[in-house]
């Protein structure tokens, strides 16, 4: 693959292969030196038009562990705030010699535009475009689920067939949800979407508005809580934080009714006490911290893959 723009572009073999490679990268991260020479001499640019310390740092660590040179571009205070377009920003940076663009942007489709409109011919990794997709997040989520459900060290070649995943929250505006839904289906999982009717997108299967009823009926293996943005209250998507938390928050009571081995996940950053109770986030069922570590392994695997495939496509 020349770019990683959307999890819809990954078939089952591609996805499992990438996850297996991520497991190997995790091995490198856990052992001694945490350094591979694979991207030595290559320049990776973090093209971040939206604020994001977590994802940006994760990509930075990943690039550096592969010995790449990393440039951080952030929109604030740059020529973009003076009105320079995405096209011109990308071309200016590419002129200096760039081997991979990692882009985060507030406009859905921005990553695809950068990859395919002919502005540059650099491989592109989508680090989150508007409310559209966040493919590396879905990959690290799938990696985490494999570990938890098949066991560390026993994940190679495995998919998520038959695994029941409940995603709860503002699905309509969530790029994490969109990428996850596609990838999980590709890996054979059964995905359920739960939230207030105003935040569920149209045209998706398995949607539910009653969290308690849904959890009882589905008995999920994995519950993924999404961050709720309080600004949605202003556009009347739900009346108050209190009401949201009461009906769709993962409280201790709801958590107690889930199976003993349920895996609790959250892409972060969390609103403790709003969509997820503190105790639940810190419980032994929670894989939230592991998700962050896996993010680095996944991003190393993605960068490794893009650079190793690039030459083949050009040849």
């Amino acid at each position, binding site marked *: 693959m020349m770019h990683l723009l959307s999890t819809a572009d990954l078939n089952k073999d591609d996805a499992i292969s990438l996850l297996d490679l991520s497991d190997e990268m995790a091995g490198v991260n856990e052992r001694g030196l945490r350094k591979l020479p694979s991207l030595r001499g290559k320049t990776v640019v973090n093209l971040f038009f939206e604020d994001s310390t977590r994802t940006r740092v994760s990509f930075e660590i990943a690039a550096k562990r592969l010995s790449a040179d990393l440039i951080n571009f952030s929109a604030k205070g740059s020529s973009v705030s003076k009105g320079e377009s995405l096209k011109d920003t990308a071309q200016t940076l590419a002129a200096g010699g760039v081997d991979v663009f990692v882009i985060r942007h507030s406009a859905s*489709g921005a990553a695809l535009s950068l990859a395919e409109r002919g502005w540059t011919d650099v491989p592109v990794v989508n680090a989150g475009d508007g409310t559209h997709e966040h493919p590396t997040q879905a990959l690290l989520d799938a990696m985490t689920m494999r570990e938890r459900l098949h066991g560390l060290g026993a994940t190679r070649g495995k998919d998520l067939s038959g695994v029941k995943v409940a995603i709860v929250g503002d699905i309509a505006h969530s790029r994490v949800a969109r990428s996850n839904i596609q990838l999980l289906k590709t890996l054979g999982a059964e995905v359920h979407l739960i939230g207030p009717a105003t935040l569920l997108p149209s045209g998706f299967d398995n949607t539910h508005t009653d969290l308690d009823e849904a959890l009882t009926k589905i008995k999920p293996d994995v519950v993924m809580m999404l961050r709720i943005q309080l600004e949605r209250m202003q556009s009347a998507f739900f009346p108050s934080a209190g009401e949201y938390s009461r009906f769709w928050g993962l409280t201790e009571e709801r958590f107690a009714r889930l199976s003993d081995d349920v895996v609790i996940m959250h892409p972060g950053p969390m609103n403790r006490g709003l969509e997820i109770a503190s105790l639940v986030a810190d419980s032994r069922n929670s894989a939230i911290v592991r998700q962050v570590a896996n993010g680095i392994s996944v991003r190393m695997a993605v960068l490794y893959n893009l650079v190793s495939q690039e030459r083949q496509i050009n040849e």
Partner: protein
Amino acid sequence: MSDFVLAKATLPDDRVVDIKVVDGLIAEIGNGLSATEVIDCTGLRALPGFVDLHTHLREPGFEQSETVLTGSQSAAVGGYTAVHAMANTQPVADNAAVVEQVFTLGQKAGYVDVFPIGAVTKNLDGTQLAELGSMHASSAAVKVFSDDGKCVSDPLLMRRAMQYVAAFDGVIAQHAQEPRLTEGAQMNAGEISAKLGLAGWPAVAEESIIARDVLLAKSLDARLHICHLSTAGSVEIIRWAKSQGIKVTAEVTPHHLLLTDDLAESYDPVYKVNPPLRTKVDVQALREALVDGTIDIVATDHAPHPSEAKDCEWAAAAFGMVGLESAASVAQLVLVDSGKSNWARLAEVMSHAPARIAGDETHGREITVGEPANLTLIDPSVSRAIEKQTSSKSQNNPYAGLHLPGAVKHTIFGGYFTVRDFELAEQGRH
């Protein structure tokens, strides 16, 4: 002025005749006519020159996209002899001075008659009526008023405006879009927008305004025109309104007759338009409505934009598509080649009806002796691969690469060939 004969042209009613033009008027219709020049029109369909009730010429203020001259040229290539220019220029056409300026620019260009449309509200801000009477009394003689680009969403203002212009048989052309339901909207609200993560523009935002306005028209017994109808639901409301004797007319654009929202999957902003491309169901309903008369006219909503406004990510791109030069082909596809209707209906929706709605007296006339020679001759047998670049200054052309039927061979503006043998004349009529 010269005299010439268009020989063996086929009229909308399928009669094959010679049309003799002398001094800009149709002098004779018959067979075997002679003149200084006899032009063979065998196989060509002769139609009254098209009238576009909805065009954006961008001048004054946005000359990087289009000027009255280049827009007029593009219109002529498309078979038009008259266009109505929308008011969202800079400055806005909300007073006599600006409309007269645009009218004069059109005359100087000399390719089509440019009839400016006046804004309904000052500066298009939706709070105060513009100088509707003065614009009507000016040399531009404005009769159609529209805030197009924006909706006249205040019901009181809409009511007052409709009442006010009724006095001189004017009409308000509404851009139906409830602003509160479409804040930040990027494309049709539906499964595709949900998948692409683009904010949706729901059909009900158009339908609710139309429903309100037809009831206002009924209560006032006033005329109403609805711009760029785009949904099946809107068609139903218009159908009901007409059945009630409400004096409403409606237009549809060529792109809403042909293109659907799945084209947005490429995130190519050439498909970004307001109102947005909708679903197959909507396209089907609009086509049926154009055939059965629920929709009265085809209007292009030709909306040119410079490349930097479209060569970017979707959310940053401007709304709009060019359309003057492919309108006739789309109309031919939907009305004639489909077998659902005929050339007479095409002449009605592209020329007679828009002229009637706007009160144009020199365009949209029947092809009969004594009428001005505003004509277009189409070769219906040609199939064109549409090029991106047209005579417009802008290239935001969603039809690029598509194959469409028919091509305009000649356009005659008051007896003057603005287009001859598929080529644009180098100068306008003077």
